[in-house]
């Protein structure tokens, strides 16, 4: 298996994640799709690490995981705060920042 396959899979997942961000209205699911994209990036990184024969890519992937975890924490905290304020959990309804 050439490594190209792995990178192609990563591209697929990334595109699916991007499409998901665009079409879903529930912010939770949008966050999930963002996770998808991050994972796709991780896969690509690890594949390249294997390609080059050093582990820098893997370290990078671990850091990405850390960032993803932080972002999830904050994002979910936001959603909980929204829910507490009795606001609709729907990105199309939440549009006060319009001009």
């Amino acid at each position, binding site marked *: *298996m*050439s*490594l*190209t*396959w*792995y*990178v192609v*899979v990563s591209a*697929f*997942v*990334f*595109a*699916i*994640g*991007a499409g998901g961000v*665009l*079409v879903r*209205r529930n912010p*939770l699911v949008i966050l*999930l799709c963002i996770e*998808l994209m991050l*994972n796709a990036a*991780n*896969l690509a990184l*690890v*594949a390249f*690490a*294997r*390609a*080059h*024969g050093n*582990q*820098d890519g*893997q*370290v990078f*992937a*671990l*850091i990405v*995981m*850390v*960032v*993803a*975890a*932080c972002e*999830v*924490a*904050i994002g*979910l*905290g*936001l959603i*909980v*705060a929204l*829910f*507490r*304020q*009795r*606001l*609709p*959990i729907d990105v*199309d309804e939440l549009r006060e920042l319009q001009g």
Partner: protein
Amino acid sequence: MAEVVFFIAAIGVIAGAVGTVTLRNPFYSVLALVFHLLSLAALFLLLRAEFVAAAQVVVYAGAVMVLYVFVVAYVGGDRSALAAPVGPRLKVLSGLFALALLVELCIAMIGTTLTVLDGQGTGFFAGFGSPREIGRLFLTDFLLAFELASILLLIAAVGAVLLARRRSGLEMAGDLSVADVMRGTHGTPGPAELETQAEAAGPAPR
């Protein structure tokens, strides 16, 4: 043998991704993502990244997804359709963009001059991908990134606590939102909010 495992894992990855995007119930989306993550861990193993795979399963699928499950249980979420109030135009457009992105990436990769991807990769030594090597790298070459990552985690933890904090008594003026005013609840906490038990009992009626 490796090819078979690869294909099974790859199919799992993509199926999980598609499931995350298309399933109506957000809970099911979370479960699909978990499946996706586990398949991804298998792919990582194929790439000789053992520690990353382990971290993926333990941290990502274990902790982060559990967090998601809790929040989905708390918040719920409508079984909303994919249609948007802005119109079907947006759906078409977004599909198009995603497709375009995919095509571009594939062209980029397949047509790349990076010959390194054509093979199995360069040779690797015995401890490639092991925790010892990763740890060594973290504490020597990538020490700064390591430290910054820990600070980031701290910030995120503090931020999450702040965001989800319940305020007792009257809300501050800055917390008042237009939606609130429009809905008629001018910031004074309703009777249901003041009761901790009611909070835990389930989603408040909207």
